[in-house]
């Protein structure tokens, strides 16, 4: 009755299964690049990291359970690879070349370009444990539960890290200058007060 007693899986995947898996990998490449860049702060490192992730995923495809989130599974591989192999290199690359925030061409419109560059610089200053969860739950579409599983921590810890990350970003970006958020001065002023408390702590 248990999952282990269902029909034995052949060790050789069929060509159709291999193709499905490969198509899934191809679909996830853009997300893997964006997550890897967010982690490592470098587009060049990100692409090395994605390549390693694809190789590991291919070699371990029998461990992926169909029906579960391929994205979450791939992010777990990518994240483990980053922390075991790339973290130190990332710092070195950033030291010598600056972060992608300073170098990367953006594909958005010109008007948002400056804002995006500023935001990326601030994002790069977050502790990585906060940055990774903020990206996961704030941009990738992963749930808090999936983020908790990927990071191997409790959901409460994820929520706490997300909260801290947002607060820190608001501080780094000085959101709370009276005009930063447009006409709503009440909330801006409230944030300014919060911001000064953070800086003062």
């Amino acid at each position, binding site marked *: 009755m248990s999952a282990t007693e269902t029909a034995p899986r052949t060790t*050789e*995947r069929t*060509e159709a299964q*291999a*193709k499905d898996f*490969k198509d899934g*990998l*191809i679909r996830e*490449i*853009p997300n893997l*690049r*964006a997550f890897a*860049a*967010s982690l490592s702060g470098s587009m060049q490192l990100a*692409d090395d990291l*994605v*390549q390693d992730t*694809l*190789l590991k995923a*291919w070699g371990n495809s029998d461990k992926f359970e169909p029906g579960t989130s391929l994205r979450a599974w791939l992010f777990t591989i990518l994240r483990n690879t980053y922390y075991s192999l790339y973290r130190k290199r990332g710092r070195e690359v950033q030291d010598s070349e600056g972060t992608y925030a300073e170098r990367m061409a*953006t*594909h*958005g419109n010109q008007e*948002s370009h400056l804002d*995006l560059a500023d*935001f*990326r610089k601030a*994002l790069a200053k977050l502790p990585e444990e906060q940055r990774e969860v903020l*990206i996961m*739950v*704030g*941009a*990738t579409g992963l749930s808090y539960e999936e983020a908790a599983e990927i990071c191997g921590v*409790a959901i*409460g*810890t994820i*929520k*706490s*890290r*997300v*909260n*801290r990350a*947002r*607060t*820190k*970003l*608001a501080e780094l*970006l000085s*959101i*709370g200058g009276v005009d930063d*958020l447009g006409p*709503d001065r009440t*909330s*801006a002023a*409230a*944030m300014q007060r*919060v911001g000064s*408390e*953070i800086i003062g*702590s």
Partner: protein
Amino acid sequence: MNRVDAAMPETGEGDNDDFDMVLDPKVQESIGRSLKAHYDDIVNAPVPDKFLVLLAQLEATEQRAAGASTDERN
């Protein structure tokens, strides 16, 4: 819609609890938009060909291996 759960103060990571404060929803919204802009900018960038080449090679290798296991080894 309701992001209250995400903004709830947590004491799970005991140190530095003064960071566990509730941000103004407008600030949260602004950060959320920037996060998506950052991420989607990379997601929408062209994917380097090398990844597709790599996967095609892996697939070809596997198909050759599968063929070799049924055919006579050469």
